[in-house]
């Protein structure tokens, strides 16, 4: 029988720090496919009436949405789980071909203490897939580094007009409790 262990942690502070970072980086639109690791950040964005949120049905929509926002003069961020990265691959071509910025915040599965074997293939392929599609990739494994890394990534994205992804390590998110 599979056993799981819940990592004991207080409510993390990095989602609030990331929200402030998005504001500091002048992000006007946030689109997302939900992930447990992004719950707090998504809820904060939904509660802020100055950030326009878009609920996506698949992550690749967020790539095209980000291009549209940029065409209209707005910066955006795209939130997803690592499994969603695979859905984006062809769509990333419109970002590279138009030299437009894209900021992807990806919470990782399939890499640290994963319980669900079906998450491993995409989780292990996330960085390689993104890099093959021309995306600059940062990986963070410590909660204290998340906000600063996202700020740095946003500067690369919007000042150099490139696609950038920040992979938020599964070690930060913690183990999923399968007993719930």
């Amino acid at each position, binding site marked *: 029988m599979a056993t799981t262990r819940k990592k004991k942690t207080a409510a993390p502070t990095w989602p609030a720090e990331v929200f402030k970072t998005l504001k500091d980086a002048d992000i006007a*639109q946030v689109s997302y496919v939900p992930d447990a690791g992004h719950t707090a950040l998504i809820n904060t964005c939904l509660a802020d009436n100055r950030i326009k949120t*878009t609920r996506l049905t698949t992550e690749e929509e967020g*790539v*095209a949405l*980000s291009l*549209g*926002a*940029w065409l209209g003069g707005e910066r955006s961020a795209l939130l997803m789980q690592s499994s969603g990265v695979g859905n984006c691959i062809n769509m990333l071509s419109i970002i590279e071909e138009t*030299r437009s910025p894209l900021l992807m915040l990806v919470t990782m599965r399939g890499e640290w203490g994963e319980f669900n074997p079906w998450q491993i293939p995409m989780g292990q392929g996330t960085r390689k897939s993104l890099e093959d599609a021309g995306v600059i990739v940062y990986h963070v494994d410590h909660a204290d580094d998340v906000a600063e890394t996202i700020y740095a990534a946003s500067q690369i994205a919007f000042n150099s007009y490139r696609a950038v992804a920040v992979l938020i390590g599964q070690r930060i998110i913690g183990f999923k409790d399968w007993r719930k």
Partner: protein
Amino acid sequence: MASKRKITLNRRDVVARIVKDRGDTLVVTGLGSATWDAAAAGDHPNNFYLWGGMGAAAVTGLGLARAQPDRRVIVLTGDGEMLMGIGALAAIAVAAPVNLAVCVIDNQHYGETGMQEAHTSHGVDLAGMAAAAGFANTATVWTKKDVKGALPLLYETKGPVFVDIKVTTDPVPMILPMRDGTAIRARFRESVLGDRAYD
């Protein structure tokens, strides 16, 4: 559903009629024939031509419409391109941009790859799907008179609007717009944003 109603509209005539009234409307075109149609109707700096990213057109229009809430945004795309990004109907309906109209030039085939039949050849009703998703206004257009009637829908009616226009598969001359994506993006942003495009 699966209508055998006769289709007579020529895609180039339809798109030329639509963009004739464009004013300062921003137009996003989906890859393939819709992009060629917009080029044939006359190049314009407020056209953003997609040459790739099949399925991108409608949501690109959504991001643009949300960033430019005071401008009308029309997406012109094909039925195959719309089907590939069909989840966009749900995303757009929930986001509910009042200034966005999605217009499908629907020839019921994949024109760029050899005219294979699309799902729209077999009864899939795109306007019905948009209505079911929650679009504020939807229509399916079959006649020249209906095209005229759809113009207020595209330009004035509170969005999100979805119009599916049935057109023939009759061959039309190949007319291509600029294809450098970076140049298309830069020209469009300069037209919309002025000097701010290069901040």
